[in-house]
């Protein structure tokens, strides 16, 4: 009799079947799900490229000149206001000398005019006395004589005024010259100090340099006090003239007093010298190139002795502190970014450490990314620039590339 009970399938066969059937499906499903999760994780990050932005400044001269001193080398740290370079001051000193000579010339002209006015006044007085003696009438007044006398007196007051102005200008020009000298002395002190620190020169040299600098300093202070005093004297001269004008005699009050035509060129020259002193002052300031903020010299673009045109860069200064990121967002993700959007920033070198930042500015247009941020060297990429600020705790280096992600 044939037994009909089916024999049992052993476990090994079942396992064998499992391996050849469901296990393949399971493995496939596991791989597919893992791939799916990785893709989604990758996309969900919305990672974008960014570059750390730091404050940078190009140090350049406002005027043409030749570099007399270059006081920094690449990667030097400088403080705000520290001198980076100095232009040659020979031309300025020559201008100062010219200005002083012009002021002296004008002084001489005004002195000559003063003597002439005085002689004229004396002659008028003599004629008046003669007439009075002839007519024996102290109250007789000659209208023309009165007018000429008034005219001459007024010229004297004007001359006085211009003389005071010139005196002040001369001192101011001298102060400018002293300031130029002082800056030279300052550099000498600085250099001597470095040599003393290196042991290359005696400390007496430093003392000597400092002493000379202090002497110039003292002269400048004295001259500034003198200028203040001269300003007072000038104002007093103006007040005297105005007072004299106010006391114009009745007999000639209605008569207009013309300005002395022969004095007009002198007075105009005095005005011109006033403006030239201001010009000297501006040029003196432009000789010294200083750091606008504390930072590090990232590059030196000129050398000592090099002639420069106005605007030509001498050095680049970068602030060592950076808390802004310039990120580039592809067009398809632009909608996710608004002012105030929060983002996570991490350094590309260490993506585990993140910091939060906020979008503060949006670029106006879609632009080409810097080449170093392209995924492929041969394929340019485009995106909208977005400025994220307020990053802290990441120790960012200016120019470093970063990864920016949206905060979900």
């Amino acid at each position: 009799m044939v037994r009909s009970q089916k024999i049992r399938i052993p476990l090994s066969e079942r396992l064998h079947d499992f391996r050849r059937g469901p296990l393949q499906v399971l493995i496939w499903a596991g791989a597919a799900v893992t791939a799916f999760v990785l893709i989604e994780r990758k996309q969900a990050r919305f990672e974008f490229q960014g570059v750390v932005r730091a404050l940078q400044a190009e140090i350049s001269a406002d005027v043409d000149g030749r570099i007399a001193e270059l006081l920094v080398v690449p990667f030097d740290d400088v403080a705000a206001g520290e001198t980076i370079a100095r232009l040659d001051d020979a031309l300025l000193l020559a201008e100062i000398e010219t200005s002083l000579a012009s002021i002296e010339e004008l002084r001489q002209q005004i002195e000559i005019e003063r003597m002439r006015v005085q002689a004229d006044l004396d002659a008028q007085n003599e004629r008046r006395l003669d007439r009075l003696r002839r007519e024996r009438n102290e109250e007789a007044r000659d209208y023309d004589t009165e007018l000429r006398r008034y005219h001459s007196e007024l010229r004297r007051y004007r001359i006085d005024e211009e003389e005071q102005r010139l005196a002040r200008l001369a001192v101011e020009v001298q102060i400018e010259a002293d300031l130029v000298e002082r800056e030279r002395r300052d550099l000498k002190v600085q250099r001597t100090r470095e040599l003393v620190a290196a042991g290359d020169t005696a400390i007496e040299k430093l003392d000597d340099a400092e002493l000379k600098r202090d002497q110039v300093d003292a002269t400048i202070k004295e001259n500034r006090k003198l200028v203040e005093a001269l300003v007072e004297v000038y104002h007093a001269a103006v007040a005297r003239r105005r007072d004299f004008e106010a006391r114009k005699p009745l007999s000639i009050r209605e008569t207009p007093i013309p300005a002395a035509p022969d004095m007009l060129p002198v007075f105009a020259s005095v005005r011109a010298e006033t403006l030239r002193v201001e010009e000297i002052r501006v040029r003196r300031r432009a000789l010294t190139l200083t750091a606008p903020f504390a930072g590090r010299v990232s590059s030196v673009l000129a050398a000592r002795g090099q002639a420069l045109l106005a605007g030509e860069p001498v050095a680049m200064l970068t602030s060592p502190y950076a808390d802004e990121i310039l990120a580039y967002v592809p067009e398809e993700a632009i909608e996710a970014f608004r002012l105030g959007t929060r983002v996570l920033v991490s350094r590309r070198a260490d993506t585990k450490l993140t910091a939060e930042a906020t979008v503060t500015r949006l670029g106006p247009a879609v632009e080409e990314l810097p080449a170093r941020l392209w995924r492929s060297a041969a394929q340019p990429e485009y995106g909208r620039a977005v400025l994220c600020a307020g990053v802290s705790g990441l120790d960012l280096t200016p120019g470093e590339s970063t990864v920016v992600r949206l905060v979900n």
Partner: protein
Amino acid sequence: MERFFQMLQPSPGAQGEPTLESTGLALLLAFSLGQLFAWFYSRTHAGISYSRTFTQSLVLIMMVVALALHVIGNNIVTAFGLIGALAIIRFRNVLKDTRDTAFVFFSLIIGMAIGVGRYNAALVGTAGLLLAVLVMEATRFGSRGHFDGHLSLQVVANSDEKSRRRVLDRFCRKFREVSVRMAGGGDESEVILRVRLRDRRRGPELLEALNELAAVRRADLILRDELAEI
């Protein structure tokens, strides 16, 4: 749906340099899609030239090519180097088996990855590919037509099949007649069946049970070698 398509977009901000994650993702995706592809090939293949190793090599080649593109990137020099190396190998060796080709290609790509300094890709690629090979081998991926062997019966012609079927049902999970031939001058029939046994070790019992049947004159069981390429 939109989210699905968004996921498939190239990741914004992704760097050109492959990372561990990106290489792993590429290999996983290639394995998944390759396996799907190979299943369809296996199920729809008609004809007698089916090869399990060819089916497996479909998966391997997909993974190797994904790894190759990761290594080459956009570097045209590396790409030309790969072409040259492939050409040299091809002309020096005749590769009869597609799986052999996949392994040769694999060695080439790993060597290239190490040469260009993409150690991540080399390590992950090696681990991923070897794991895929092991998995496919362990699961006998690509094999089809699960049967254990052929049963040859000499039976009395026109005899009742019921008892024979009962015996076969008892010992076999499935069986199928593949040929019937008249023998012995018309008194006997030779029936050849393809069988899948419930327990391979109990093949002799099956023969014994069949031989006990009056209608069965002779029974032979030829078990298939698992390594045989069928």
